[in-house]
């Protein structure tokens, strides 16, 4: 044998076992070479594979294994040493790599396994999310349906449309078989089928008593309740069998404020009436009511309730509007009529005012003139009657005009600032002629606390006072008429018939009480309420002689009322005199000090010519001294006669006369009378009485004779100054109660 560097295999190559091993190795090598090829191919195909380098390692390992087995093929026969060496090297490399791979796989495999679990987890999650998505989508769908439904329902204010639309839309959304709507009837004892989705109510009104258990159950909760499909409230068209309808749900619809469906007393404790909505699923689908569908139904029921109430309210408001428009029209007509009436009245008044008064005045004036001419007694008596009648008519016209203006409230009181006491003094003066003619006496008492200046309607106050006093005089034939004016006090007796009239004095106003007491024919207590009625007069003979319009007291009453006061009459009975009291409210001037300041003392009376008449020498001298101090031009005389003499001289223009009342021979009173006879009121000097007498009688007498002032002796400089200031500022007839 040649010695070749070849290695002999352990076994002969022709052995069967060797042959099989040879084949096996061949196939192993084939497989081992093709596996990495496959791996590479597929890895190249796939885009993501994180473990490339692992693959490489694995590939190397497999390739080496394959190459080992491949090389092994040569070892079955005799082979050279080189082959054996290559085989050994290959095997060594294979061993190294496979060990390395094995070690590496320890790290890799857990990762790979976890990847798998994560994948499973994600798959599960995805499935869940898909499910939920499906649910949300369904809900959104239904929500959209509800919104559309609501829009539809709310877009109309007609009840029928609302209900029909509801049912239609619900039917569409929930794919219902049938829908029923039951409304409560007139008496509230039954529910009547009012709307359905598909069928037509051919067979009359269907009712169900309200106390049915199912209905009660549904009404007691605001949720949608699943009810049995045998319930009487489920009415569906096909009555072929029981299984036409599937599950049924019913919900209550609260009815707010029905007007069309008139209700009596609602028997339930739950005061609100309800309607019933019944929804039926089709029988052939195995659907059941889902929670979200029930919720949808509840929401819809609420929306329907709201829409219905809106419709009801609209109806009502439209009715109310109709009513208001009608009333408006009527009021407008009434107003126009009233305006026309007022226009007519005003025209009438204007006409009366102008047209009737003018001829009246003509008649009166001419009759008076006629009286002055030469007439036969017959003619004279005729003219007298004409004059009397026309005067009466004139008064009547004026009174009627006044009363008509007072009646409709068009008369407004004037507001002036005036001297209060002066009003009553004037009244007294005005009645003086009648007083003396009827041989009566009048006394005027003005309380010292009366405010000097007040704000009010002086003319109307005087008219009232004059009327009252005039009445007193009219109905008195002998005796005395006393007029008392004072500030009202709470303790004074009020009208027994009107105790609620309680005047309260205030800062800006005061209440004045005027009482006129006469000793005349009196009034029967029965007649007292009638006194203030228009045109009524008592029937006694005395009144028939004293013609009057009968309006006087009525006018007084209205004036007094306008002045915020009250007037009433008291009488003990026929023949026992009458007491008329009236209380009026007058404003107090805001700045009485200003008024005083207006009357600021003059300190200089230069050029004022004064004549002093006093029999007492000392008095004369003192008075003269006073007046000279004030700057007056003084002349003194010592007797009444001298005074008259001096006055009568032409060119003597004395402004003020100071007269001592108690003088021998001719006293101050006589002088006054003589002077008044001689001179007209505006021509004569101002007459001032000087007296030491403090009693009212003297004062009254002086004033009643027409003197302008009464001064008490002894007189101080200041007093003289004040008196002169007042006299010269306000002229004649000033009675200042505050200064004694």
């Amino acid at each position, binding site marked *: 044998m040649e010695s070749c560097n070849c290695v002999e295999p352990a076994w002969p190559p022709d052995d069967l076992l060797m042959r099989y091993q040879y084949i096996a190795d061949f196939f192993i090598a084939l497989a081992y070479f093709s596996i990495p090829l496959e791996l590479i191919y597929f890895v190249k195909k796939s885009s993501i594979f994180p473990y490339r380098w692992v693959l490489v390692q694995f590939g190397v390992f497999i390739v080496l294994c394959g190459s080992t087995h491949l090389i092994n093929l040569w070892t079955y026969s005799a082979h050279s040493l080189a082959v054996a060496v290559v085989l050994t090297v290959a095997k060594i490399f294979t061993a190294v790599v496979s060990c390395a791979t094995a070690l590496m796989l320890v790290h890799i495999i857990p990762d790979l396994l976890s990847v798998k679990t994560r994948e499973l987890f994600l798959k599960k999650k995805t499935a869940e999310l898909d499910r939920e998505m499906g649910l949300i989508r369904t809900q959104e769908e239904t929500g959209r349906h509800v919104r559309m439904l609501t829009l539809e329902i709310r877009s109309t204010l007609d009840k029928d449309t609302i209900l029909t639309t509801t049912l239609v839309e619900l039917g569409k959304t929930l794919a219902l078989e049938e829908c029923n709507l039951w409304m409560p009837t007139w008496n509230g004892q039954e529910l009547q089928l009012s709307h359905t989705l598909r069928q037509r109510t051919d067979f009359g009104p269907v009712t169900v008593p309200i106390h049915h258990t199912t209905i009660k159950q549904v009404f007691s909760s605001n949720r949608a309740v699943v009810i049995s499909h045998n319930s009487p409230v489920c009415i569906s068209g096909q009555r072929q069998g029981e299984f036409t309808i599937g599950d049924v749900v019913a919900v209550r619809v609260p009815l707010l404020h029905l007007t069309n469906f008139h209700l009596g007393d609602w028997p339930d404790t739950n005061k609100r009436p309800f309607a019933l909505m019944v929804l039926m699923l089709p029988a052939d689908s195995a659907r059941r009511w889902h929670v979200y569908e029930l919720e949808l139904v509840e929401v819809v029921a609420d929306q329907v309730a709201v829409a219905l109430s809106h419709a009801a309210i609209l109806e009502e408001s439209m009715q109310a509007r109709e009513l208001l428009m009608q009333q408006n029209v009527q009021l407008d007509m009434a107003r126009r009529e009233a305006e026309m009436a007022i226009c007519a009245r005003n025209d009438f008044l204007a006409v009366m005012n102008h047209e009737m008064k003018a001829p009246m005045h003509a008649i009166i004036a001419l009759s008076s003139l006629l009286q002055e001419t030469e007439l036969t007694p017959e003619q004279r008596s005729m003219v007298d009657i004409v004059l009397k009648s026309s005067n009466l008519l004139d008064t009547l016209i004026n009174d009627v005009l006044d009363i008509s203006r007072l009646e409709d409230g068009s008369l407004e009181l004037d507001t002036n600032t005036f001297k209060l006491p002066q009003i009553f003094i004037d009244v007294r003066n005005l009645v003086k002629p009648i007083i003396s003619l009827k041989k009566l006496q009048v006394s005027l008492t003005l309380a010292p606390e009366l405010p000097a200046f007040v704000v009010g309607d002086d003319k109307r106050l005087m008219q009232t006072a004059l009327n009252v006093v005039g009445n007193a005089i009219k109905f008195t034939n002998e005796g005395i008429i006393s007029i008392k004016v004072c500030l009202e006090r709470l303790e004074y007796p009020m009208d027994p018939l009107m105790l609620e009239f309680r005047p309260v004095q205030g800062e800006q106003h005061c209440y004045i009480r005027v009482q006129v007491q006469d000793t005349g024919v009196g009034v029967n207590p029965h007649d007292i309420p009638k006194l203030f009625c228009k045109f009524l007069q008592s029937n006694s003979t005395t009144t028939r002689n004293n013609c009057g319009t009968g309006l006087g007291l009525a006018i007084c009453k209205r004036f007094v009322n306008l002045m915020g006061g009250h007037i009433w009459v008291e009488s003990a009975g026929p023949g026992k005199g009458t007491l008329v009291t009236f209380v009026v409210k007058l404003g107090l001037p805001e700045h009485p000090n200003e008024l005083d300041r207006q009357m600021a003392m003059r300190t200089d009376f230069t050029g004022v010519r004064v004549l002093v008449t006093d029999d007492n*020498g*000392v*008095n004369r001298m003192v008075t003269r*001294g006073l007046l*000279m*101090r004030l700057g007056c031009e003084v002349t003194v005389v010592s007797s009444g006669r001298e005074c008259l003499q001096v006055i009568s001289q032409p060119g003597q223009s004395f402004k003020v006369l100071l007269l001592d009342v108690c003088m021998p021979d001719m006293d101050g009173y006589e002088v006054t009378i003589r002077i008044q006879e001689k001179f007209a009121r505006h021509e004569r000097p101002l007459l001032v009485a000087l007296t*030491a007498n403090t009693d009212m009688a003297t004062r009254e007498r002086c004033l009643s004779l027409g003197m302008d002032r009464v001064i008490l002796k*002894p007189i101080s400089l200041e007093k003289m100054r004040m008196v002169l200031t007042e006299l010269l500022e306000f002229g004649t007839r000033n009675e200042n109660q505050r200064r004694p």
Partner: protein
Amino acid sequence: MDVAKLLQQHVDLMDDMFKEGLLDEQFNQLQQLQDESNPNFLEEVVSLFFEDSQRILENMTETIGKDPIDYKVIDSQVHQFKGSSSSIGAQRVKNVCVTFRTYCDKEDKKGCQDALEEVGEEYNLIKKKLETMLELEKQIVAIGGTLPFMEGC
């Protein structure tokens, strides 16, 4: 005499008269009426008062002396006296006159006589004092002083 001393006497005298009620406010008024344009006013008035009063008193005495007394006359006379005395401010004289008049009203002879006597006394009293006052005033003016009530006029 010294002006100050005279003035002091004047003041004392006036104070006394007012305190005793011989004079009242009215007299002050009269004092005020005396000024530069009327420098002797007070003296004139007082003098006139003396004259008048003298005359009236004589008349009254005469009337009271008669029998029977004419009360109307005496009343008017007393009235006169009352008037002048009140004008001048002779308070006590005036008061007596008032009482006197009541006696006249009652026609009380005894009362009237007593009253007359009293009024005479009062009058004399005030006359004396007023004369002193006037004398003082004359002296003061003669020396060149100014009367107290005329200050500031």
